[in-house]
């Protein structure tokens, strides 16, 4: 069995996609950020010098570059590096890439992937810690992938690079880079988007989670099991498409729900998911839903303050205790 890290899985997806489809091209190559995992991506750059290109630090231009190339048949991935840098590129991501297929009445597809390292990462402070998935979910026309595991990091990126016909915002998380998983069969890791995964069966409460919050939910569930509370965990994997059926079926079984996502709270991902659940299944809920997310505070630099705002497993435990009281 091969033990693969989350970061390595991203590099492997890029490598396999470059091998399989000559339309794949990589614009920007700092997927590993400032971690030692960057060596996998450096190797990729050495192996594909003509197809792994590093443009200047011009995010808006680079996202336009990927969008334009995609519109004429390429399958580019643009590495924005830090998620907060997507704000430098908003016009091309939100107002061009996301709109082109619809505005053109379907004439032109733009299968471009925008990669970003999102989330609270230890002293990244207010300008390097964003989780822009809620802001981008508010943009019709984008696929949103938030892999929580190495296999999904691989599978969702492979789908975006080789099969998807829409622009995809792909959110990796630097705190997940060291997570490992045994992966033998890469082909089996290629899951279609829009299929949530139940990572833990449970009878008492459903925890719907994305990205980094899935592993935090697993740890919370282990703690709660000691107190005889049995949690079911739904890893959404993608927000667009959204697998409402799996969420609703789980909530119908447990009657209680906590939603965990690292976005800021107001108008966040958790808020939207709770709205969807209550619109369709309010009669199945035996307690008011709870959300676990980052409070509406710019992420502070100071370590004790940062720790205070991170939506960690203790906060999930607290929320579960509130809905099961």
């Amino acid at each position, binding site marked *: 069995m091969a033990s693969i890290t989350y970061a390595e899985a991203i590099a492997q997806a890029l490598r396999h996609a470059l091998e399989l489809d000559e339309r794949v091209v990589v614009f920007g190559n700092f997927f590993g950020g*400032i971690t030692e995992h960057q060596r996998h991506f450096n190797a990729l750059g050495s192996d594909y010098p003509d197809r792994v290109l590093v443009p200047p630090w011009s995010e808006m231009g680079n996202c336009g570059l990927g969008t334009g190339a995609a519109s004429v048949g390429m399958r580019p991935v643009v590495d924005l590096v830090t998620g*907060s840098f997507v704000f430098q590129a908003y016009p091309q991501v939100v107002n061009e890439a996301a709109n082109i297929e619809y505005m053109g009445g379907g004439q032109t597809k733009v299968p471009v992937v925008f990669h970003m390292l999102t989330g609270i990462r230890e*002293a990244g402070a207010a300008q390097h810690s964003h989780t822009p998935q809620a802001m981008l979910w508010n943009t019709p026309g984008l696929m949103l992938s938030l892999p929580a595991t190495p296999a999904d990091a691989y599978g969702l990126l492979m789908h975006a690079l080789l099969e998807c016909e829409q622009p995809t915002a792909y959110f990796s998380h630097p705190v997940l880079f060291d997570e490992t998983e045994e992966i033998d069969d890469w082909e089996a890791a290629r899951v279609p988007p829009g299929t949530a995964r139940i990572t833990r069966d449970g009878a008492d409460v459903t925890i719907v989670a994305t990205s980094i919050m899935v592993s935090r939910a697993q740890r919370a569930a282990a703690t709660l099991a000691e107190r005889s509370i049995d949690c079911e965990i739904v890893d959404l994997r993608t927000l667009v498409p959204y697998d409402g059926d799996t969420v609703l079926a789980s909530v119908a079984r447990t009657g209680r729900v906590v939603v965990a996502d690292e976005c800021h709270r107001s108008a966040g991902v958790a808020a939207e998911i709770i709205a969807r659940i209550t619109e369709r299944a309010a009669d199945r809920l035996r307690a008011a839903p709870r959300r676990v997310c980052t*409070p509406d505070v710019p992420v502070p*630099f100071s370590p004790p303050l940062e720790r205070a705002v991170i939506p960690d497993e203790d906060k999930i435990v607290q929320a579960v205790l509130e809905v099961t009281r």
Partner: protein
Amino acid sequence: MSKPRREQLLVWHREMVRLRAFEEAVARGHRDGQLPGLLHLAMGGEAVTTGLFNCLTETDRVYSAHRPHQHFVASGVDPRLVMAELAGRETGLCHGRAGTMHLMSDRVVMGTGIVGGTISLAVGHAVTQDDGDVVVALFGDGAVQTGTFHESMNLAALWKVPVLFLCENNGWAEFSSRDEHTTVGGVVRYGELYNIPAREVDGTDVEAVVEAIHAMLGPIREGQGPALLECHIARMRSHYEGDFREQTSDGDPLLTIEATLTEGLGVDAAQLEGVREDELARGIELLESVLAQEPEPDPADDRRFLYAAGDA
């Protein structure tokens, strides 16, 4: 220049050494795991920073970028406040909320974690300045490849905004060398394009820097519009502390000024070495004192400085 050259250079030398020593202490604190975050040090830029503040009035303002520590210390901010901020302490310059890149104060208004993030803010500040005051926009050569640089240059030229665009060109944009990110040889060339007076200068030579900035500030203060100065400096450290890439460039401004002092002006090398030892000891003492004495913020205080709680 009122002081004799030798005396003036000795003053500037001590100031440059003080800035260097502050960051030597920061580097040590980071290496020891006591200063968090992604630290971008400005070692190599001491002559530009020292020369700049020599030329500014108390009411001029400066916008910094992602290597801001030395700019703040040189502006007269108590180094203890800066060090406490870098340690994330409640008593830091920004109460621990900002950290390394996002420092804020009075004369140096702010740094930024975003390449090109403050250039247009400097222009906005400058349109409100009283006659005769100048705002300096400091940025690196990487920021020249962002749209805001060009948007800001264009508007400042059009409206004759009193801004000095000061590019500290250290030859690197994060992990890309200049040749890898542009075909435009010199940043100074954009001056002609936007009809802005432009010069380039050896940024390791504090006297050359002072001469150039003095010459450029005059017309700006008189209302003739912005100017662009490109200072060629070294990036003596990699992009961030701990970076395995070791992408640096040569040109230590301390060696330049020390050569001038010893070779041409008869200063004893041992005297200069004494200044270095003295300032480094002060820097380390400051680091240790801050780490030992300044309090951490109270985690319950995480909403402080928010105008309104959006999630009430």
